[in-house]
């Protein structure tokens, strides 16, 4: 499923599976969700990303039916779901704590929802077997939740929430309790299962790497508002605000004022006594408007000699080197006192590194490398 094939959000004909219409949720004085409108399409893997307390869990609990909006409406497949109680919604949730029933075996946990539907016994058997197979848990069917590992518990929770063929599956920090290695493997497993079952997934996470890996679209939230909704690459390459640029990945932010300089090009003066930076930006800025240049460390080149043909080049002194094995991040202090991070792949052995602490180096980047953002 490549991006060009699956982009229902760009298709004006497509009907969203879920539609939030000006939804607000208040707890007393505190506003958890603030006049929010979003669309989620069928078969999407939609990630809600944000710091704790940004309202992403509230949003998910409203979808599950555990919270009701104070204002606004939520539509699931065109139907207002406000009067539908959680047990009647075609929505299932995978809880952060997994919430597996400790007194029931893995098999009984997965069958729990099916039995409530009064499904015939052999259909339940078939469905549970299929779920066990999907999550590779056949061997553990008779065990109790406390007799299996954390990763297996996570898969039981997933199997249980998928068993009822929900139209929508909600995942609340599904991988939070797993260690890093297992988490990465499980991310791909989740994507696999999502593709196989064709279920719409909404995942809540505070881990931006996780959101970028699994999601078809990422919604970055802050203080009960959606700041940006876009595909992972657009979120990373074209953040719409300083907040998103700063929240997703590592970024250098340079403050200055923009002066139009040709079509889509701006000269950005950022410090007295230094030549202005050349920036290309599709966003329009007026003359003298305050702005921020957001540029990713890996898009900043570092060299010991002044580069001959660079759009932008500044000189600085290496303050710190973070060596990560495959890459190194250089913290370079400019004469203005600002610190710029530059990242390069360690293609040569560390002993042959061209520069070290306290060396004076040149940093350079192209006019299109960064994004110009309004204040």
């Amino acid at each position: 499923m490549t991006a060009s094939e699956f982009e229902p959000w760009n298709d004006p004909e497509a009907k969203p599976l879920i539609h939030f219409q000006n939804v607000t949720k208040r707890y007393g004085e505190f506003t958890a969700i603030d006049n929010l409108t979003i669309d989620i399409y069928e078969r999407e893997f939609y990630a809600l990303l944000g710091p704790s307390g940004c309202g992403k869990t509230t949003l998910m609990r409203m979808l599950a039916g555990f919270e009701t909006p104070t204002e606004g409406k939520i539509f699931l497949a065109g139907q207002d779901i406000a009067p539908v109680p959680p047990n009647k919604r075609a929505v299932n949730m995978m809880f952060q704590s997994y919430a597996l029933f400790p007194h029931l075996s893995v098999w009984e946990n997965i069958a729990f929802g099916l039995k409530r539907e009064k499904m015939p016994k052999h259909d339940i058997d078939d469905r549970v077997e299929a779920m066990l197979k999907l999550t590779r848990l056949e061997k553990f069917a008779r065990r109790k939740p406390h007799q299996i590992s954390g990763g297996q518990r996570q898969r039981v929770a997933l199997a249980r929430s998928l068993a009822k063929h929900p139209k929508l599956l909600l995942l609340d920090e599904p991988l939070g309790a797993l260690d890093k290695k297992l988490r990465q493997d499980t991310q791909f497993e989740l994507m696999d299962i999502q593709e196989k079952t064709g279920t719409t997934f909404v995942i809540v996470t505070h881990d931006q790497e996780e959101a970028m890996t699994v999601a078809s679209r990422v919604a970055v939230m802050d203080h009960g508002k959606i700041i940006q909704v876009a595909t992972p690459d657009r979120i990373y390459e074209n953040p719409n605000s300083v907040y998103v640029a700063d929240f997703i990945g590592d970024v250098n932010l340079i403050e200055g004022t923009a002066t139009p300089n040709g079509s889509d090009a701006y000269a950005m003066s950022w410090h007295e006594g230094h030549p202005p930076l050349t920036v290309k930006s599709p966003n329009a800025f007026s003359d003298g408007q305050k702005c921020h240049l957001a540029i990713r460390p890996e898009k900043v080149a570092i060299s010991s000699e002044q580069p001959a043909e660079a759009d932008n080049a500044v000189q600085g002194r290496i303050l710190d080197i973070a060596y990560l094995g495959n890459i190194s991040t250089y913290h370079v202090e400019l004469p203005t006192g600002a610190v710029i991070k530059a990242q390069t792949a360690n293609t040569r052995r560390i002993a042959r590194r061209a520069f070290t602490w306290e060396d004076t180096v040149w940093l350079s980047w192209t006019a299109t490398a960064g994004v110009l953002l309004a204040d």
Partner: protein
Amino acid sequence: MRRFVLIAIPYVWLLALFLVPFAIVLKIALSDAAIARPPYFPQFDWAEGIAAFIAELDFENFVWLTEDDLYWKAYLSSLKIAVISTFFTLLAGYPIAYGMARAPEEWRPTLMMLVILPFWTSFLIRVYAWMGILSNEGFLNQFLMWIGVISEPLTILNTNSAVYIGIVYTYLPFMILPVYSALERLDGSLIEAAEDLGCSRLTAFWLVTIPLSKTGIIAGSFLVFIPVLGEFVIPSLLGGSDTLMIGKVLWEEFFSNRDWPVASAVAVVLLLLLVIPIVLFQRNQQKQQEAEQ
């Protein structure tokens, strides 16, 4: 060595305060009643030796317990009262414990305190207070007549109903506390998960809350059942002449009839009967501990 001392302390305690008194009671149970002080025979005499002393002991009193139907009827009636009142204590205690566990966090210590508060006054005074409430001229009858529900006072005091009321009231905290501690540990997201998977509130309660508070229910039931089986004060103060409980029989045997050997035999049999639920209770506790590990 230090470990040995540490282990020895509870065992010495048990020996001095349980096993030795039990041996004395057992010995009296095997003796014959006598008009003497103390009122039983034989007394141990160093001059005659242990063999002669043991030769005097017999199981006559235990045989007597099977011959007179008063005793096994009293045991059965105690068992019945204990089972029924344990059931009612559970019925009254579970909702209270559930309410406490669902109450806001800052309220729970206060609620807990209110449950324990009655222990701060004498148990006897509280049972006497119930006599004042339940008697024909008591508060309950006056109140019911005042609001016009009844025209004649109900006879509650000195009936089995009064005994049940007294037992449920007295032993309620023993039911509430273990059930509360089981319910308080219950993860709220389990209930939400059950609802999410299609349960109504009621089925979620039945399929998740009840099974997960099972250990608390069992512990509470035993904590009520075991002491109620040998209860003496409540039936003798609130019960009538037809209230038959083994604790009361024991007391009358001992103080009214001054037949210490038969009273002791009743006590020994009661103890043996209690061993069964106590062992079951211990098992339940052990299982719960294993489940938590």
